[in-house]
């Protein structure tokens, strides 16, 4: 319910419908496009990305907010790029072109690009769609690892509540009628999760902290 709208508003890609958004005590609309690009990076799916770009080229584009008028990469830029490549484990893929990659690999490359942008906040819109269960877990674990290793905040939208419950520090649950924010335990204790879906098919099992199909 309105996940994408929320994320797009938060990341400044879309004008806000109502209210005010601020980051690091500054209102989003007071930030210049350049500063905003150095504060929030995004990972979006299904964009018309040129598949001819090599992995390194794509990640290098994450440095655009820092480069000069023609986009020359400085020594620091190159360091940040190789740092991002190492963090996401892309050494073996960095010479490949995007059309040679699987969906999961491309997702990793896009995450590395956001890392290279070196922002305190990374916003991802459904980073796990089109991925199989293994790669969903892989991407989300990667995100978890990045929060601890790079000290960045990561906010993402997902339908994979079971996975999110296991990995996230805080969740925002959005339904048509209500919005709840809290840690997984808080949400479970408040019985928020069991009221998300109509109860005729699935139910929330507190013991295993996951949704189960009614038998």
């Amino acid at each position: 319910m309105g996940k994408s709208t929320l994320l797009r508003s938060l990341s400044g890609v879309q004008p806000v419908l109502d209210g005010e958004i601020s980051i690091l005590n500054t209102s989003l609309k007071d930030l210049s496009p350049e500063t905003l690009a150095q504060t929030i990076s995004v990972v979006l799916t299904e964009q018309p990305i040129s598949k001819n770009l090599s992995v390194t080229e794509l990640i290098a584009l994450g440095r655009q907010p820092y480069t000069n008028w023609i986009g020359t990469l400085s020594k620091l830029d190159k360091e940040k790029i190789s740092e991002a490549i190492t963090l996401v484990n892309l050494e073996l893929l960095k010479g490949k072109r995007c059309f040679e990659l699987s969906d999961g690999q491309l997702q990793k490359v896009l995450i590395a690009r956001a890392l290279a942008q070196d922002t305190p906040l990374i916003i991802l819109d459904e980073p796990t769609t089109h991925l199989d269960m293994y790669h969903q877990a892989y991407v989300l674990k990667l995100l978890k690892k990045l929060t601890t290793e790079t000290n960045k905040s990561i906010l993402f939208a997902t339908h994979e509540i079971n996975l999110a419950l296991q990995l996230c520090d805080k969740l925002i649950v959005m339904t048509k009628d209500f919005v709840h924010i809290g840690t997984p335990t808080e949400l479970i204790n408040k019985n928020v999760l069991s009221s998300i879906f109509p109860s005729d098919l699935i139910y929330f099992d507190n013991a295993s902290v996951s949704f189960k199909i009614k038998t």
Partner: protein
Amino acid sequence: MPTAKNYKALLVILVFVMIFMALLNVSLGSVKIPFKDIFNILFQQSETNESWQYIILEYRLPKVFTAILTGSGLAVSGLLMQTLFRNPLAGPYVLGLSSGASLGVALVIMGATFFGGTAAAILVSKWSLVIASSLGSLLVLLAVLMASAKLRDTMAILIIGLMFASLTAAVVSVLAYFSPAAQLQQYIFWSFGSLGNLSWQEVAILSCFWFLGILIAISCIKNLNTLLLGEQYARSLGVKISRNRFLIIIATSLLAGSITAFAGPIAFVGLAVPHLIRQVIPTNDHRTLIPSVILGGAILMLACDIAAQMPGSEYTLPINAITSLIGAPVVIWLLIRKQKFIF
């Protein structure tokens, strides 16, 4: 991007190919002039045959410059449009510029008969065609800019450009239907395009527009590279999308509009050269792409002009036919050879 260095050598080769083609172009034509005399005339070494001197300095040399300016200008505007719209089928004329120019010229040539004989004589001169063509392009450009200021979606501009093309084509065909054969022929000859009719003064004016357009294109290089990720990513990387779009449209219009005004609507070069160059220099970096399409466009145009003169004969074929006749099979061959086309 790490591979940029390897392409420098290729660029240097392209520069030499272009110079060679330019010299070849000057030396070929319906009048045979020995190479030694051409050299003497070009570098004003010694007195030579006066009519040869005239042919070289007042006809062939301006034509070479026109070929270089039109080829490179169209190629750059084609590249700009392909990147802006993220569409391999885009070319310099997708905004409807050439349609606007055609309408302007058609109104002058074919509409002149409606204003009577004397008006027709005044109206149909070289300069009035240039002005009519520019005004036509400008009108379409203003309409596209107004639309682009209102629209958030870049793709819609592409469709609006196509609609303008259909509209103007319809008006032109109505005009053509009521026009006498002589006027019709004159209009059709204009639409064939021609490199050979430009005086030095006109070449100078054209090159001013060329420089301005290329300068704006160069100033957009960084944003063009960012646009390869799509507009949403570009916005998240700090690109001011509508301002950037405006600049790219202005650069394309300056280049394609002025070229159409002076040389007619030259087809194909703008669409094909960026693809040809990407086959030779497989890069996405506009820092390499822009100089290479400038050279590639100039080379292709010079080659087409040589072919159009049909060396050894007295006839000259329309340049517009040659660009497609040579260019289309080359692009088809390159794509078939590669089998996989990724844009």
